[in-house]
């Protein structure tokens, strides 16, 4: 792993993993001891998303390994390169219900890109080399290596295996010329083009090429939650995030376009709403490195299999300025007609706090989020300017992700200000990592948007379930500032709108270690715009509806 350039391992020790922990004593790799294995996986995930290099996790067998499952799912759903090493009972005990034995490869099959159970120490160099290659190549993902204790205790003299050879494993790079030409031909006919940018553009570093393409064509840009930052969201024809809680102007552009090009995006159900009604009249072009994404939900007219950056660079010389001035003006008008907003007054608003966070950081902070209302408001108001500066659990929607991911990101980028925007619900799932952040004096800033509710679920219950609240009241929340102080972490309260700027500035400038800001926001606010799950984009709610809503047909 030293040969693979691993800087940090995030993990928690245990019996079956002791030989590996022992080896770390003499290694250049720095071990970050976490307080829970889930925290370790999200830290490795945050490290990986912030750098593009694989995050590495080391845990023990049994419960140590099963505690990584949520982190594996999170990484798989969002294509994050990660290598997870799990200790295992000695190979002669496999299947005998030994202490802390679990069938870890069996439990994790559906949540890994690939996995290994190593039973011969001579396989270790090859397996490690393959694991790192698989984790980062093609569509990245987590790879798990289950290591029985007798294997990790044995001396290994196997030679360097050389570059991995995996028959049938193909990494697409450039798309076929004929398909590129077909796409260019369709693009040339468009008068209302739209570039829909996803995480694949972030991963491949396609942002600059996409920005050039947008300028050359005269095409507006929208991005997914995970695509934030590939193209500067503050640039002129960028319409922000699309989808369920995207901006109204982004979604109106999706409704009105005559051509939509997905660049490393997978037509997720958060984006499309009702698939049968999504962009039915538009020409649809799909760029993806994973052929299994083609025609999975939305069908496309041209499918460009390859690396997002390389494919966009292939397209660039073949396209020219479109007759799209009227369309760009129409999109600009949508932005003026349906701006993002929030009520002025009525207490402290999460949107206000996040709007000011964006101003305080001047968009130059790396922001991680948890999952829920705060996540959507942060996505709307904290515009991302650079690649790998926005880390959020999209596919899995993992509460508890934001804070440990911020720790991993801060290790990766010690000179970048890192803010973890979290809710009071999610933060409590992984807050034990306050100790990890405090020990390493990491200047991570935690902003808790505290409404004492599981707010997104409460919003749904209000809108779709006759406000019959069930399982959403977080009565019993601690005083988070006191809790932080118990860990030796500096804490701030925000109660009034007038305190927002002062506290955020003070926290932003504080670099003596972690600090925590608890913003006591109004309890019952809702995220708008909103497209009810499974509804067509045309049904977007810009504000709170007057009439009773039907239960959504889509999931969550």
């Amino acid at each position, binding site marked *: 792993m030293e040969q693979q350039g691993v800087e940090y391992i995030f993990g928690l020790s245990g019996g079956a993993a002791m030989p590996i922990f022992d080896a770390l004593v003499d290694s250049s790799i720095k071990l970050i001891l976490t307080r829970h294995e889930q925290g370790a996986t999200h830290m490795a995930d945050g490290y990986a998303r912030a750098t593009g290099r694989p995050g590495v996790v080391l845990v023990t067998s049994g419960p140590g390994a099963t505690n990584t499952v949520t982190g594996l799912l999170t990484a798989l759903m969002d294509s994050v390169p990660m290598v997870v090493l799990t200790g295992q009972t000695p190979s002669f005990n496999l299947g005998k219900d030994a202490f802390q034995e679990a069938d870890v490869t069996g439990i994790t099959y559906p949540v890994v890109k690939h996995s290994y159970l190593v039973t011969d120490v001579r396989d270790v160099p090859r397996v490690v080399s393959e694991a790192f290659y698989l984790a980062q190549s093609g569509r990245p993902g987590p790879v798990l290596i289950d290591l029985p204790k007798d294997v990790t205790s044995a001396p290994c003299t196997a030679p360097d295996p050389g570059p991995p*050879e995996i028959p049938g494993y193909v990494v697409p790079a450039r798309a076929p010329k004929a398909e590129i030409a077909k796409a260019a031909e369709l693009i040339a006919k468009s008068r209302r083009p739209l570039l829909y940018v996803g995480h694949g553009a972030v991963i491949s570093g396609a942002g600059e090429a996409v920005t050039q393409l947008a300028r050359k064509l005269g095409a507006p840009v929208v991005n997914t939650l995970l695509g934030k930052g590939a193209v500067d969201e503050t640039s002129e024809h960028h319409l922000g995030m699309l989808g369920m809680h995207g901006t109204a102007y982004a979604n109106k552009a999706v409704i009105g376009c005559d051509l939509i090009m997905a660049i490393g995006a997978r037509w997720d159900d958060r984006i499309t709403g009702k698939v049968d009604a999504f962009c039915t009249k538009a020409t649809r072009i799909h760029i993806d490195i994973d*052929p299994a994404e083609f025609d999975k939900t939305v069908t496309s007219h041209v499918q460009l299999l390859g690396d997002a950056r390389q494919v966009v660079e292939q397209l660039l010389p073949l396209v020219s300025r479109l007759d799209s001035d009227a369309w760009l003006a129409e999109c600009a008008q949508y932005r003026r007609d349906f701006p993002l907003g929030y009520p002025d007054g009525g207490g402290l608003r999460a949107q206000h706090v996040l709007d000011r966070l964006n101003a305080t950081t001047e968009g130059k902070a790396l922001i991680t989020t948890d999952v829920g209302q705060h996540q959507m408001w942060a996505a709307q108001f904290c515009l991302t300017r650079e690649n790998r500066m926005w880390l959020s659990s999209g596919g899995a929607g993992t509460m508890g992700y934001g804070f440990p991911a911020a720790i991993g990101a801060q290790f990766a980028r010690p000179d970048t200000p890192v803010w973890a925007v979290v809710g009071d619900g999610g933060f409590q799932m992984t807050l034990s990592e306050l100790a990890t952040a405090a020990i390493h004096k990491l200047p991570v800033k935690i902003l808790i948007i505290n409404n004492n509710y599981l707010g997104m679920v409460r919003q749904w219950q209000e809108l779709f379930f006759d406000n019959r609240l069930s399982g959403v009241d977080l009565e019993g929340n601690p005083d988070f500032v006191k809790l932080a102080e118990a860990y030796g972490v500096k804490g701030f309260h925000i109660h009034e709108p007038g305190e927002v700027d002062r506290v955020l500035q003070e926290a932003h400038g504080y670099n003596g270690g972690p600090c925590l800001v608890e913003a006591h926001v109004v309890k019952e606010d809702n995220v708008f715009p909103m497209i009810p799950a499974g509804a067509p984009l045309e049904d977007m709610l810009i504000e709170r509806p007057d009439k009773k809503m039907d239960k959504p047909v889509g999931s969550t």
Partner: protein
Amino acid sequence: MAATDHTHTISLVVRDKPGVLVRIALVFARRGFNIESLSVSPGAIEGFSRMTITSNGTPGVLEQIVKHLSKLVDVVFATDHGGDDALEEEVALVKLRANADGLAGAVALARERGASVVHQDDGRVILCCHGGSEAIDGLLSSLEHDHVEEIVRSGKIVIDRGESDFADLLGGAPKSVPPPAR
């Protein structure tokens, strides 16, 4: 898309690794699909196996399944046979138990249909028949039910008539395959 269910026959060449069958089964199970038959045998090259899977489903979902099978790292190739170019065979072993009428009639019928007797003792006969799945279905339905004690079928195995995507791995000169794993 027409949502008509069809039986699909999928051929795979896979790396011969522990867990590969589970990974493949999960691709079906996750979508609520049942594997109807499955046959695994060593491939022409050490370290690789050939699988034939039959499953029922709509063409769209089966296409996704094949794509996700191909995506598995241990799967070298996966393809859904259209049916036209593929040669399909199956083997069945049928154990018949004598009743009052004896077994002679059933054995004669089976022999007429190309089955052979592979075992015989006082009260029982074991027949072996091979051929298309429909032919075997036909034979089984024409044997009297009270005669049949046990049936074991291999599940379909399939090979392309012409040049196949798998030629490399089925005996031709391998191009993309490294030497057998140690």
